[in-house]
């Protein structure tokens, strides 16, 4: 099966074939790798030194930096998250982070996730106590006064046991903002009532809420509650970094309600930076390996290993976990390993489910015709090989054959493993070569400019057969599979309209909509790997 892209959207090739009578303008062979919708991270507090909750002068460039850097983790859309902060911070920061489509500049911003300050004191976790709030009589106005205008806000996390929370939840829901329950000591009844008012998400399940109890499951019980509105799917975020949740707990949640599981990173500014002390909003945190805690007292004089090594919480600093520094692709791999679920489930948890949570499943988290062409190319162990947004390759790593220029002015180059390809033009174009073409390239790269069809090795087999490298080599060697990029550069780019890119893949992992899942008759069938 091939993925066809045009104008930043996924194209129905049958229409192109019979109506427009055209073939692909460019093909890309991805060598039997897995093609999946791009990951969506709905809870990320910052990264690479950028803290979204800091009211700096230039919040935009911080968001842009994170947006660019998370591409290599396979994230194509995200919700920058603000932790509990004083109102001044919200008033300064929120207007500076507008909703923005992804593109050569980085992953798309789907809207802000405001986690707090309307949360429980006992379960505040790493949120600073001083800035917690509760709702006064005029609850929604109070919220507006705290946050400011809500145009850029997509998700709000609050504790439903706070007074007047229901009118707030209802008001937020009518405004199209997703309400999430978290950092709360609510029991199951209160949580169910909140869902009836409109809540649809649970912020990092198990963390910052009452533990599951067999006579009062608390918020965790929502996963299997039978008192929810009919047809409503409750989604829940899980931080699958190996620290926030014991793998056994992860498995329990996954088995209880697999369709609602949303993988989140809850990444903090220390993501991508190494060990040491970093900030998170008004707090300081300590990073050690893949774990981050609220920075507390000096370490135990007997040394960090004086505590029993088996308990991950008894290390230096405090025992309060403070966000995570596991990138999204690490979370996906860990989730896959811990639950033993299928690859499709793991990838869906990072792409389709967050899209469904935000009501974007027609355009994100899917490879259906008409959806945005945001996808990732993964190898068999789910390491990200390349990330595409609107059909433009924006990040690629690992395999040198996949190296593509990162400059936004660069078009997609024709990539083939050069050892197999006999033709001299099957090499990636160097940045210097492209720079001279200048504005022509930009026209070509614009979202309106091209259909890009990526071709994978047609020998990726379904049903668990291993792809044969010999056959793949034969295919790549036969020629006629890829058009030369020098061909492109010699063309008058401005005259090129609506170029097509064809991705050949037999290993596309996504869920076709109900009604299209006809065996042998799908346009883009869902297959087991």
């Amino acid at each position, binding site marked *: 099966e091939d993925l066809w892209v045009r104008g930043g959207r996924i194209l129905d090739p*049958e229409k192109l074939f*019979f109506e427009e009578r055209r*073939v692909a303008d460019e093909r890309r062979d991805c060598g039997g790798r897995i093609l999946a919708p791009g990951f969506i991270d709905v809870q990320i507090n910052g990264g690479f030194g950028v803290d979204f909750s800091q009211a700096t002068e230039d919040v935009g460039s911080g968001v842009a930096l994170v947006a660019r850097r998370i591409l290599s983790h396979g994230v194509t859309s995200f919700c920058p998250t603000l932790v509990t902060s004083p109102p001044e911070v919200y008033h300064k920061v929120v207007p500076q982070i507008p909703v923005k489509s992804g593109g050569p500049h980085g992953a798309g911003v789907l809207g802000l996730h405001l986690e707090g300050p309307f949360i429980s004191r006992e379960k505040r976790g790493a949120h600073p106590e001083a800035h917690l709030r509760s709702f006064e009589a005029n609850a929604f106005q109070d919220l507006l006064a705290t946050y400011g205008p809500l145009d850029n806000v997509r998700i709000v996390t609050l504790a439903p046991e706070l007074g007047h929370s229901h009118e707030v939840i209802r008001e937020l829901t009518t405004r199209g903002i997703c309400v999430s329950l978290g950092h709360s000591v609510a029991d199951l009844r209160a949580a169910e009532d909140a869902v009836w008012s409109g809540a649809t998400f649970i912020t990092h399940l198990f963390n910052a809420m009452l533990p599951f109890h067999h006579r009062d499951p608390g918020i965790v019980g929502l996963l299997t509650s039978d008192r929810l509105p009919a047809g409503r799917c409750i989604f829940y975020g899980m931080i699958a970094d190996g620290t926030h949740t014991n793998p056994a707990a992860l498995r329990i949640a996954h088995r209880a309600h697999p369709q609602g599981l949303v993988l989140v990173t809850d990444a903090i500014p220390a993501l991508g930076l190494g060990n040491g002390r970093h900030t998170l909003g008004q707090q300081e945190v300590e990073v050690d390996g893949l774990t981050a805690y609220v920075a507390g007292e000096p370490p135990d004089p007997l040394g960090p290993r004086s505590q029993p090594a088996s308990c991950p919480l008894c290390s230096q600093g405090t025992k309060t976990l403070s966000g995570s520094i596991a990138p999204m692709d690490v979370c996906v791999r860990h989730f896959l390993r811990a639950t033993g679920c299928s690859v499709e489930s793991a990838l869906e948890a990072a792409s389709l489910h967050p899209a469904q949570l935000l009501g974007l499943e027609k355009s994100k988290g899917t490879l259906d015709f008409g959806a945005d062409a945001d996808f990732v190319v993964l190898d068999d162990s789910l390491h990200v090989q390349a990330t595409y947004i609107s059909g433009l390759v924006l990040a690629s790593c690992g395999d040198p054959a996949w190296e593509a220029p990162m400059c936004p002015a660069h078009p997609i180059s024709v990539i083939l493993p050069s050892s197999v390809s006999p033709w001299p033009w099957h090499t990636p174009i160097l940045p210097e070569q492209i720079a001279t073409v200048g504005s022509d390239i930009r026209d070509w790269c614009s979202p309106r400019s091209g259909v890009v069809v990526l071709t994978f090795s047609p020998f990726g087999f379904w049903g668990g057969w291993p792809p044969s490298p010999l*056959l793949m080599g034969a*295919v790549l060697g036969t020629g006629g599979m890829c058009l030369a990029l020098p061909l492109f550069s010699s063309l008058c780019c401005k005259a090129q309209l609506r170029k097509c890119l064809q991705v050949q893949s037999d290993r596309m992992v996504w869920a076709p909509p109900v009604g299209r899942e006809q065996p*042998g008759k799908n346009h883009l069938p869902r297959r087991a790997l």
Partner: protein
Amino acid sequence: MKLIILDHYSQASEWAAKYIRNRIIQFNPGPEKYFTLGLPTGSTPLGCYKKLIEYYKNGDLSFKYVKTFNMDEYVGLPRDHPESYHSFMWNNFFKHIDIHPENTHILDGNAVDLQAECDAFEEKIKAAGGIELFVGGIGPDGHIAFNEPGSSLVSRTRVKTLAMDTILANARFFDGELTKVPTMALTVGVGTVMDAREVMILITGAHKAFALYKAIEEGVNHMWTVSAFQQHPCTVFVCDEDATLELKVKTVKYFKAPPQVNRKGCIYSTNFGM
């Protein structure tokens, strides 16, 4: 007539695919000289298509200079309906090979003037220089394409109303709902297929056995329209064992000669590597 009898469906499909492949390669098509191929739909040629795709992927065959003409298409069915023959050809053949869309021709069942569409199709075939090899299947009632029993044996491309047998047979593709099955179709005529320089008919399965018997052991009869090909100078019938169940033992023995005889004794001018 050559009757090629193979043991199983898969072997029959492979034989047919190899035959097509070798004919294309021998023809040596180029930008000035396209190989025109007539193609069928249905479950019988699926194996053949899969094999052709395999040959393409192995690099043995290219469809770059091949023009295809499909036999038929339903009337009134949207082109992107999963059961339309456009969808069938796309999903089972065209999307896997390197044929250019401009070189594929399928009748348009949603044309405003259906007869004009049929006439235009005939013109396109003529403009392409006639069909080199027309591959077809057979219905349980002995029809070729949608030339139902009673069709003229010299007919051209036209609109046909489908026989009840055909509608019943097709109901399984439309959720078993007879009301959803199209009742009319555009089809090439028997005469159109007879004009091809070579014809290959694929017949597999026991349910086609009686039709095969009527087609080759009885006379030419418009009630079994495939029998018209008894009068074609170059026809190949490819079938599996099950399809020969209604034939005389004598007929089967005559055509099922040992492989060496097949290679040398038959009127093949080339060795097809069987």
